[in-house]
Structures are given as C-alpha cells and as structure tokens.
C-alpha cells in the first residue's frame, strides 16, 4: 500500500515574472502524514492551490491516484477524493457548524448526512458547538470545523493549509492525534505549515521549500539534520 | 322698519339656504385618479386645474342636475396598476357617481377597464391613445384629443405646398413612435417619400449628423417629435450650419420655452399643437381669462383637456336632465358640442374623439399664430420658411 497517491512532477509557476515554484517534485505516499514546510513566501500556498485546482501550473503536472489533474477544476479534483481546508478560515459565516458540514455532504440522504456530520463533530470533540453560527466561533474551533467539513467529503487525501498556525499547543496535540487516527483509517494527510515542532516530530515524510525550490526531503531525522534546512531556518 | 325686516329675512334665508339646499341635493361625487407623483405629475397638475376650474364654474351655475359637484381624488403615482386599483376603490368603496380618467394613456387604459366593468361612466379626458376606445367599451367616452390629431395638419400642409419628401427626426419615446406612425399612415398612398427616419435617444443635444444628412438629401419637410429643449437645439444648429428646410414642424415648438429660449431663431418654425390660448373657439377667451385669474398662468393643452372633460359632462347631464348613468350615457353617444378646444364629437361606435382637430401654429414676431385649420386661423402662414440670409 505504500504507493503514491499525489504526485507533483516538475511544477513551475511564475507570478508577474517572479518565480513562485521552480520545478518542484513531490510524492505523497498513500496513508502517510506528509508535511511541507518553508518560510513565508517559499511557495507553499502556491503549491497547495495548484494541487487543489484553484491555480494552474505554468509547466509540469499533478497526478492524483495516477490521474492527471493538471487542468481539472477545483470541483473535479474534489470529486476525486481530495478535500481541503483553508489557511484563513473560510467557514460559511451565516450557517451553523452543522450546516457548514451538511452543505458539502455528498449523496442524497439528509439523515445520513446529518448523522455523518454529528459523528465527525463528535470525533473531533466539538459536537457541543453544532448549532453555533460559523461567525461566532473561536480561531481554534474554526480550524477544527474546517477539518470536519473536509472530512464530510470522505476524502482519500486531506489537504490541510496551515492547520497548526496560531493554535495553542494543547489543541495542536489534539489535532495531531486526530490526524493520526485518520491515517490509521487509510486517509492520507498532506499539509503545509511552518510550525517546526509538529512537522519535524509527527510527519512520516517532510518536504522543505525555500524560495520556490525544494531544498530537502526525507524523514524527519534526515530533514532535521540537513545543512540547508538549518541554514534556511535556524 | 320694513327695510330692517327685509334685511333680517334675507340674512336668515341666506344663512339657512345652503343647509336646506345641501339636504335636498346631495353632491354628485366624481372620482379621479390623478398622477400627483411620478413622471406624469407635471402634466396631471394643469389637467386637474382645468377640471377644478370647471367644477367651480359649474357649481356657480347650479352644479349637475341641481346638485353640487364634488371630486374624490387619489394619487395614482403615474402607475397603471395603481390607477386600476384606485378606480376599484372609487367605484366600489367610495361609490362615486361617475369617474374622470387620469391623464396619460396607460393609466386611462387600466382605469377605463375598471369603469366599464362596473358600468360607471368615465369621461376619458386624459387618455389620448386610440386603442383605449377601440375595445368596444360602452361607458367610456373620449374628450381628449387623440394622439394622431397631432398629425392632422401635416397632410393638408404637405398638399398645399406640394411637399415631396420628408425627414422624421424624433426623440425615442412612446408617444413619438405613435405620432410618427400616424403621420406615415396619413401620408401613405400620397406621392411623398420619407428620406430620413431616425430616432435619437433621450439626452441627445447634437443634431449635426442629422442636419448634414438633411443638407445632402434636401427633404422639403422636416418633422421633429421633440421635447422643447431639443426643438430649440435643432433650430439653433440649423442656423449655425446655415441650413433650413422649406418646412420645419415640431411639437416642441408649441411649448412656451421654445420662443423664449430660441429667440430670433424661433421665427417661422411650425408647431403641432392641440390647443392654443389664442384659439378663437367658443368660450375660450373666458376660459383663458378665468384660468389666468385663478392660477396666474395661461392654460396649456392639459388644462384644456381637463376643462373640456367637465364641459362635455355638464352638457350631457343637462341634456339628459339627470345624472342617471344610462340616460347620460345615451346622450353622450351622440352629443356634439363646441368647446374651448374646438368641437366635441365622438365616433358612434367606439366613442373615440373625432371632433377635436390638431392645430398647426407658426412662430411669427415672437408669438405662436394658428395657421391651420382655416376656421381658427389667427394669422396668414408665411411659407415656405425663408433661408437664414433672406430674413
């Protein structure tokens, strides 16, 4: 089962002449927790948006489960089992937490959708806020609801955009636990963050971006001791 | 002593009379939906002033069938749907005896349908569209001049002066399209060619391209269905481009603004008109005088529309001897009458107005003179219009 679920092949992207990504290659192994770290402006978000289909690469291609999705729309990619969260929470503010989840559910059965939503909220230990409005949630609650909403799509791959940024360590640990559980269920977790502690302790595989270039990758121990990483980060 | 007694008796009678009279004669209530707000408000104002002046004068003459006249007026907001609703209200809630139309074809159209449904007489004093009358209604009588009356003078003038080609340059608005249609219909079959037929959008102030076309195609008659400001611009630009067709006629010429703003350039221009204060029709002098005394301005054609609507109703009630709907209706189907707008007569089947004719006026020495029809002429026409350097 250790095959590749998301493959990024030689992807480059420029914005008005400035290089955002320069021939980046990434393999995300099925069932792994894979992280991408890099300082601000290193091209993490661009990479994410290209995988999620909201941006198109200039060159290179992206494969999901062996299928070329380079020119697919965001909705199509989502349909292939790739669900995402957003760096800055994009919950539907005038809908309750439950409604935020139910709105994106697939399938025809309302009851099944609600049952799944409640199950996920319970799994993430936030069932008590099911009927709170999206607009009234705390920062951390939003992060969790974003994850729950992505899980509603019963994805094969979760793309998490900075799930740990700005979250207190206790909650960070909780999120990590949840991600571990998801992994155990066979869901691949692919996230970007600059929270070194989590990335360097919890990931199966780490990619390091700097100025649009991949400067290192490997397991946490390899990356932790990589000279270029140390230079870029410490 | 006797003198004192007479005086006392006179005072007592005078004091009691209105009360006694009031008991005996309940007022005749006439419903009107009037556009007090909205885009028709400016035109509806004088229309109601004309109506109200008539009411005053008619009441002084003893009212309708000996009963004083009272108006029940609501604001239809220049909206046809509101007009329909209000005539329902006037007829079913207020139980008015009869109704006058609002001013404007759309509101008169919807209001008249309600009057017809309830078999209540409507004097259509403000709805100019022929179509209002062509629905076979039995209780709606048009006293307003038809829209096509504007074109009445075009054919005789064209014939008299051997007009062979015409230009039609008009602002794009509903009435202009209707009048234009009427003009083309009345000219069809005659040896007249339409060489320019153009509509320009509201807000246009530059007519040089149309004038250049005119210089090239040389139409004998230039017809403009224009607001006064556009008529003013047209003659000014005629002058600056040193162009003058043999005949230039526009409805905007008949508005007061035209002469005051265009000044010398206004001279000789022809105007389509429905009513002029100078019109030598029966009772017009008196109407203009009393109107001016009461409101401080000369009546325009909307005021005349209102006044004539009342005049016709009063004559019909007088002839019928009562305000009984069926009796008055019977009289109205054939009533012929001289009014301040000329003649009143309705078509025997549609009750469409056929008595009132459009007028042609010409600006002469800073005044509008009626030059057509012959019977109302106030001056001889000075035609064709001389070129700018021949004045």
């Amino acid at each position, binding site marked *: 089962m250790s095959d590749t679920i998301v493959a990024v092949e030689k992807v480059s992207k420029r914005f008005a002449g400035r290089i955002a990504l320069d021939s980046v290659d990434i393999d995300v192994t099925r069932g792994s927790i894979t992280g991408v770290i890099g300082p601000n402006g290193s091209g993490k978000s661009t990479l994410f948006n290209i995988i999620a289909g909201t941006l198109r690469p200039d060159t290179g291609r992206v494969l999901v489960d062996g299928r070329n999705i380079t020119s697919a729309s965001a909705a199509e990619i989502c349909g292939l089992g790739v669900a995402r969260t957003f760096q800055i929470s994009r919950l539907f503010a005038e809908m309750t937490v439950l409604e935020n989840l139910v709105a994106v559910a697939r399938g025809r059965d309302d009851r099944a959708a609600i049952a799944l939503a*409640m199950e996920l909220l319970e799994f993430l230990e936030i069932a008590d806020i099911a009927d709170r409005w999206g607009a009234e949630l705390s920062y951390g609650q939003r992060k969790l609801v974003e994850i729950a909403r992505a899980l509603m799509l019963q994805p094969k791959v979760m793309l998490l955009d900075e799930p740990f940024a700005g979250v207190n360590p206790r909650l960070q640990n909780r999120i990590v636990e949840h991600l571990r559980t998801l992994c155990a269920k066979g869901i691949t977790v692919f996230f970007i963050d600059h929270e070194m502690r989590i990335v360097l302790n919890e990931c199966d595989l780490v990619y390091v971006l700097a100025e649009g270039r991949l400067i290192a990758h490997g397991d946490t121990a390899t990356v932790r001791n990589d000279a270029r990483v140390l230079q870029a980060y410490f | 002593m006797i003198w004192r007694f007479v005086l006392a008796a006179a005072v007592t009678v005078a004091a009691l009379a209105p009360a006694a009279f009031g008991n005996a004669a309940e007022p005749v209530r006439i419903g009107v939906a009037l556009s007090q707000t909205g885009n028709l408000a400016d035109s509806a104002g004088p229309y109601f002033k004309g109506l109200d002046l008539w009411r005053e004068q008619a009441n002084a003459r003893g009212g309708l069938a000996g009963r004083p006249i009272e108006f029940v007026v609501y604001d239809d907001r220049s909206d046809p749907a509101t007009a329909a609703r209000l005539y329902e209200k006037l007829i079913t809630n207020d139980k008015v005896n009869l109704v006058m139309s609002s001013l404007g074809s759309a509101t008169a*159209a919807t209001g008249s349908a309600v009057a017809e449904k309830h078999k209540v007489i409507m004097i259509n004093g403000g709805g100019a569209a022929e179509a209002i009358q062509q629905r076979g209604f039995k209780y709606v009588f048009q006293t307003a001049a038809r829209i096509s009356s504007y074109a009445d003078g075009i054919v005789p003038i064209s014939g008299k002066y051997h007009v062979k080609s015409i230009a039609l340059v008009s602002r794009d608005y509903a009435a202009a399209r209707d009048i234009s249609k009427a003009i083309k219909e009345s000219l069809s079959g005659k040896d007249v060619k339409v060489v320019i037929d153009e509509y320009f959008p509201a807000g246009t102030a530059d007519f040089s391209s149309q004038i250049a076309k005119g210089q090239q195609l040389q139409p004998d008659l230039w017809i403009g269905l224009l607001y006064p400001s556009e008529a003013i611009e047209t003659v000014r630009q005629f002058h600056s481009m040193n162009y003058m067709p043999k005949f230039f006629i526009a409805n905007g010429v008949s508005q007061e603004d035209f002469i005051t703003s265009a000044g010398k350039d206004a001279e000789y221009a022809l105007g389509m008109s429905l009513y002029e204060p100078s019109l030598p029709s029966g009772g017009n002098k008196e109407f203009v005088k009393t109107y001016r005394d009461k409101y401080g301005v000369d009546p325009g054609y909307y005021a005349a529309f209102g006044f004539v609507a009342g005049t016709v109703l009063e004559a019909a009630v007088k002839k019928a001897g009562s305000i009984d709907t069926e009796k008055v209706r019977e009289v109205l189907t054939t009533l012929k009458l001289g009014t301040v707008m000329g003649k009143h007569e309705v078509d025997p089947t549609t009750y469409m107005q056929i008595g009132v004719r459009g007028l042609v006026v010409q600006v002469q020495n800073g005044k509008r003179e009626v030059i057509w029809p012959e019977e109302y002429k106030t001056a001889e026409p000075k035609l064709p219009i001389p070129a700018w350097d021949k004045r």
Partner: protein
Amino acid sequence: MNRMKKVNSLGVAGVAGVAALVLPFIGSDYTVSFSIQLLIFLVLAYSWNWIGGYAGYTHFGQVGFFGIGAYVGSLLNFHLGVPWYFAAIIAGLAGALTAIPLGGAMLRLKGPFFAIGMFGLTRVLEAFALGFDSVTGGGTGIYLKPVSDLRPVYYVVAAVAGVMLFLTWKLDNSRLGLKLLAIREDEDAAESLGIPTTRLKIGTFVASAIAPAAMGSLYAVYLGFIDPPTAFAPNIELTTIAMVLLGGMGTVLGPLCGAVVLSVVNELLWANYPQIYLASVGVIILLAVLFMPRGIVSLGMKTGWVTVSRPLFRRLAARHGEALS
C-alpha cells in the same frame, strides 16, 4: 421554552391560506384588486429571494422576465386567443427558456457587475418592446379584453404565491438551500469543497425567472393592458427588492412580511400623505436596513417570536444528540 408563542412557518402559511381563500367573499372589489397586486409582488419577492437572498446573486433584472412574460402572454392572448391562464403557463416557460442562455452568460459576472448588467439587459428588452412595434404595438402597447371578474385571477395568483411559499420552505429545509447559502457565503470555497456552483447558480436563476414571467402575463390580464414602461417598470423591480430587504433576505417568511408590510404601509401612507409617501417609504426602508440588516424576520428570531431559519436541521441535530446521550 415558550414554544407555544413561537410563530411557525407552517402556521403562518395556514392562516394566510385561509385568509386568502375567504377574502374575495368578504372583501370589496377594491380589496380583491389590492390583494392581487400584493400577491403578485409576493410571488416576485419569493422568486427574487431564491437567487438574490439564498444564492446571494442580487440583481436588478427580474422585471425583465416579468416584462417578457407580460408580452408573451398578451400576444398569445391577443393574436391567438389563448385563454389567459394557459397563456400564463406558456409565459412562465418562456421566462425559463430566456433565462437559460442568459444565466449562462450573465452569471459569469459577480457582485455589482451582475446586478447592473441585469438592469441594463432589462432596459434593452424595454427598448426592444418599444422599437419592434409591428409585433408589440410599440409605445401604444397591447390592449386586451379586460376580465369581467377579478376573482379567478385572484385565485390563480394566490395559488402561485402559496406554491412559492411552500417551495421556499422546502428549500430552506433542504441541503439544496444550504448549498445555495454556501455560494452566497463564499463561492470559491464552495466550489473547492465540491459544490457544483455553476450548475446550481444557473438552475436557481432559471427557477427564479419562471414565476415572474407568469406573473407578468397575469398582470397584463389584470390590467387589460400592457406597454413597455408598464411591463418593464423599474419601480416593480425596486419594490420587490425593498420587500425582500425589509422582510429578510434568504428566509422563508421574509418576503411575506416585507410584501405585506410594505404594501399596507404604502397604501395607508399614500392615502393620507400622497406628496411625501415616496420619501417616507424610502426612510422606512433605510431605517430597516440600518437597524434590522437581516430584516423584520430576523428581529422576530432574535426576540424568540419566530422560529429560526432551517428548523429541520436543528431538530435533526438535537434528536441525534439526545439519542447519543
């Protein structure tokens, strides 16, 4: 806690339905006439609420469909003698047929561009009705044989209004409604979470064009007359939007509240103060938008008099919670 006091959508609908049914028997012709106009606006408000309130695509072009319907219905009735109720159905279909390509083209625009673009389109339609006078009668308009009794028209319009209320209630309690709200809240996020935004937008736009076109046709029947300024009146558009704003956008009872309040206030104010009614209505709407940005209905929800939106999901969630504990 005070459950009995709460105004329930279905309860309101029931009371309104009974009132609507008996009104023609107890009211005068004027009442019926007034009610027809109110109900037509109610239908327009509910239709606009779908695309403008739920999907968040506010626009100023609904009266365009109203006008198309008015002309399609009138021409069928006038030239071919099609009965008015049947003409109204065809008019509704014509509205939908026009909306399909229009939605595909116009819904690429967002926010004010879409709103104003639709307004412009309506003005083009009006100019077309004016200019194409060999068919439409141009500025003269079309004169129909007036109906001798308003009651059948009233019942048809009332039935459509009832259906619109019911469908909106269904929508409000369905996932489709939530998906539309998601588009309103954040279209890009909705798209990347797999909600088929384009299809839903166009579908909603088309659905929201049907009833207005049918109403346009019935309006012409009711008036016995239609001309371009009447069929495409900007006033109809603005009044409709004002009703939804006042009542509460994207709610089940909002359009009903807004239409009833605004119509009645209009009628009372205008009867007593014709010169200032426009200004007064303007001030009322302004105050409403400033102090009740979510409309009368949301004020009712806050004070607990009206059940909050989308009760079904709340109920199901609560039941689920109870079952677990």
